[in-house]
């Protein structure tokens, strides 16, 4: 996955993401595609969650999956999550759960609960950073005011790091794939470098929904695992998603 939050020169915040999933879960050599990735694409739906006939939040989901991976609380905050690999992984959390130690939260139920109940960027950030999880994760959160954008790196128990937009350091975007931002990515899976190269080439003056879609359409940021691309603009309460394909030749991940 690749998620990014960017702030334009006028202080508008944009949030984009590619949802990549299905690695090593069956390769269709005839069509040169991942089997699970292809069966997930028809399940992609956009959902408007309402209460008293008013929108509470909107999301891009896989039908049948009640947790949240991508969502917007219009005019308040935007949220995506990317997978984080760690030896202290979800299987330990599941074992604890089965043995009756149930003080952690399932990752996608936390994101769903935050989108449904948090009423500010700060509240969302605190809950995502402090709630004990069953599995490690990256939460990428955008707010509705200048400087409100961050990547929260989570282990199951701790918040290891919160990496924020910082105008003083000219950090006008934060971008997360599936590796801790303070370490180099795995050399065979470096989608971060090309994505950052394209963001820097775009420059803050030109950042928009359109140019973020260009970055997320550039191989290998777009790859054979990419199921959908979502673009969000918090000030307009706008979420739009597109099902993707990666024509050959294309990186398998």
């Amino acid at each position, binding site marked *: 996955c690749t998620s990014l939050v960017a702030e334009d020169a006028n202080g508008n915040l944009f949030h984009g993401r590619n949802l990549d999933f299905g690695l090593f879960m069956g390769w269709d050599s005839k069509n040169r595609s991942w089997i699970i990735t292809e069966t997930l694409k028809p399940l992609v739906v956009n959902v408007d969650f309402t209460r008293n006939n008013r929108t509470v939040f909107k999301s891009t989901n896989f039908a049948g999956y009640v947790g949240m991976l991508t969502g917007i609380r219009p005019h308040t905050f935007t949220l995506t999550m990317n997978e984080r690999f760690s030896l202290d992984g*979800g299987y330990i959390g599941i074992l604890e759960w089965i043995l009756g130690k149930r003080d952690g939260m399932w990752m996608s139920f936390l994101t769903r609960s935050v989108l449904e109940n948090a009423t500010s960027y700060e509240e969302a950030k605190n809950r995502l950073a402090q709630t004990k999880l069953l599995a490690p994760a990256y939460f990428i959160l955008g707010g509705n005011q200048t400087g409100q954008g961050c990547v929260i790196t989570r282990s199951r128990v701790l918040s290891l790091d919160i990496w924020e937009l910082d105008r003083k350091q000219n950090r006008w975007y934060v971008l997360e794939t599936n590796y801790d931002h303070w370490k180099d990515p795995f050399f065979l899976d470096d989608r971060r470098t090309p994505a950052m190269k394209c963001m820097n080439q775009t420059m803050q003056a030109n950042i928009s929904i359109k140019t973020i879609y260009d970055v997320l359409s550039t*191989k290998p940021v777009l790859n054979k695992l990419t199921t959908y691309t979502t673009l969000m603009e918090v000030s307009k309460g706008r979420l739009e998603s597109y099902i993707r394909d*990666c024509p050959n030749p294309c990186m398998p991940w």
Partner: protein
Amino acid sequence: QYVPPYTEECRSGMYPPRGPTFKGAVTWYTVDLDLPPSKRWTEVITDKKANLVSMIQAIKDLANSFVPSGKLIELVDRDLPLIVNTLPYPFNEEIKGIAQDSGVALGEVVLFNIFYEVFTV
């Protein structure tokens, strides 16, 4: 990281989405949070039932390729329903509603919904 043609120069002018990298738009649905949890996803699942069944089947095929005896699927269908009542409300009820609406075994819908934690294995 520069291995053309698997990587490429930064794309431009890709928006609005069209061409070979665009496979289709995404349909909008409304989920009414005032409804009982088990009824919230009925419209979505009614439309996507066939796709959900084939995705679950793909995961079952994958599981059976690891454990040809089918024991892994048996374990999912027998034991995972025991977990559903330990999951927080309203997610447990929503999952039961999805199993009801789709006809997919409850354990398999649970597996789909906790796949993130399971997949880290």
